[in-house]
């Protein structure tokens, strides 16, 4: 691990300023992904600003009937919260489908959104990776791509976003709240938060330098039945090959987002209109324009079948 200095910020604005003041500084929340990457020197911050003392560890009701989830709320605390289990089941289910008990106890809401891809070439510092070193090339294209993106990728990067939680946040239309070093706050709809790789795969999100996530808000509950169907290589503690986050109403209408297929949670409101016609009608629209590799072409029928399983369950009483 490269050497770094460490401080604990006292307020969100302090934290943003501390990161802005020092080139190479980074926020440190749970650390489960950042420290992992620092050990292999994929991440090499010179200064860490710990955000554990900022009071961002609460889940509070919003004025319009939703919930504001503090950025530092752990994955376990979020999944366990009674309001989340009752009104936003897809989120609770997505969280407990990811990682392990130990990791969920430390990982935070903001950190989960900001976790980096698990593309094996991003981790292997002997291999070219445009996300790790812009312009180096992409060893995943033409490489072992079974886990990687089937849609929304570019000639520079075919990485996927690894989060389960973010897929549920997408289906719930969550909003990411931030503060910048000037004290300006903004609210970023989750749909606009993560980016497609394009020519700048090194940039996972639309956050600006030293902009700190303070909370993620959920709109008021939308009812319906909540599902998170995750397909992976083993029954527990593995990243998704394909996942389906869905909220389905009594009349068969609803919302669907896919995980494991793209550089961001994948949702298309127009495709959801086809839900009453069944899974194939939805995934044909949702995954139109997909460019899978030979290794991961199986993800297209798998996504359809995972959604079909969800819709079959939604039809049961």
């Amino acid at each position: 691990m490269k050497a770094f200095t460490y401080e604990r910020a006292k307020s969100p604005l302090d934290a943003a300023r501390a990161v802005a003041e020092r080139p190479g500084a980074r926020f440190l929340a749970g650390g489960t992904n950042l420290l992992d990457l620092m050990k292999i020197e994929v991440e090499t911050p010179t200064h860490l600003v710990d955000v554990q003392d900022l009071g961002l560890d609460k889940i509070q009701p919003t004025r319009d009937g939703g919930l504001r989830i503090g950025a530092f709320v752990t994955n376990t605390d979020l999944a366990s919260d009674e309001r989340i289990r009752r009104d936003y089941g897809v989120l609770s289910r997505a969280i407990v489908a990811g990682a392990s008990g130990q990791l969920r106890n430390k990982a935070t809401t903001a950190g989960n959104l900001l976790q980096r891809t698990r593309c094996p070439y991003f981790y292997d510092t002997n291999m070219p990776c445009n996300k790790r070193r812009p312009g180096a090339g992409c060893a995943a294209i033409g490489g072992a791509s079974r886990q990687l993106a089937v849609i929304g990728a570019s000639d520079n990067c075919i990485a996927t976003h690894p989060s389960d939680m973010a897929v549920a946040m997408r289906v719930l239309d969550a909003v990411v709240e931030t503060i910048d070093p000037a004290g300006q706050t903004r609210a970023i709809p989750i749909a606009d938060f993560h980016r497609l790789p394009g020519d700048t795969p090194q940039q996972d999100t639309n956050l600006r330098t030293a902009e700190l996530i303070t909370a993620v808000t959920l709109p008021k509950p939308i009812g319906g039945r909540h599902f998170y169907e995750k397909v992976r290589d083993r029954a527990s503690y593995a990243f998704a090959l394909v996942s389906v986050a869905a909220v389905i109403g009594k009349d068969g209408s609803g919302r669907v987002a896919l995980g494991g297929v793209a550089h961001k949670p994948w949702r298309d409101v127009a495709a959801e209109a086809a839900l009453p016609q069944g899974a194939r009608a939805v995934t044909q629209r949702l995954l139109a324009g997909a460019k899978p590799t030979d290794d991961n072409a199986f993800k297209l029928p798998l996504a359809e079948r995972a959604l079909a399983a969800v819709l079959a369950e939604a039809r049961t009483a």
Partner: protein
Amino acid sequence: MPETPGLTVSRRDMLAGSAASAVIVAAPPAAARDDVRPAPPPSMPVAFEVNGKAHALSLDPRTTLLDALREHLRLTGTKKGCDHGQCGACTVIVNGTRINACLTLAVQHQGDAITTIEGLGTPDRLHPMQAAFIVHDGYQCGYCTPGQICSAVAMLDEIARGVPSHVQSDLMAQPQPTNSELRERMSGNICRCGAYSNIAEALAEVAGAKA
């Protein structure tokens, strides 16, 4: 070679320094300066409680909680397996919840209360989970065992507190310590010897359930 007073020179630094010295003969001095490493960051104070005993340490900020426990406090019961949060051998209980000690910095734990395998029980006064692992032969080589036991103790508390799991059918129901629940909740602890069925027996006994 760096001339920082009091700097501990590792074998790696010695070799790198020697190589640079050899280059100086043939290359201009600028080439040698490129190899000079920055001084390590200053140590930072951190104080926390381990197994009920207060400790105050001064650590390189890079020190993980795992290395602080093993290398600085000589509590070597907690094991380093993968050092990347994948195997669970380093599981300890911090303020009542289980975490991977390898993926957290010691300086993040100012004021925290940490329990390691040494704090759960002693050979004379075993924790019920330790006793159950012995009765059910819940290990072969034993390397993953301290992590398994710390994880298991905190995991049963998570069930009691109503933390949901992936195998739970009704999110609003109080989770029960069934075999499938126990196995799912322990998936962050890998046993290379494959003693899983005996581990599950031990967990079930302590949980008062059927394996």
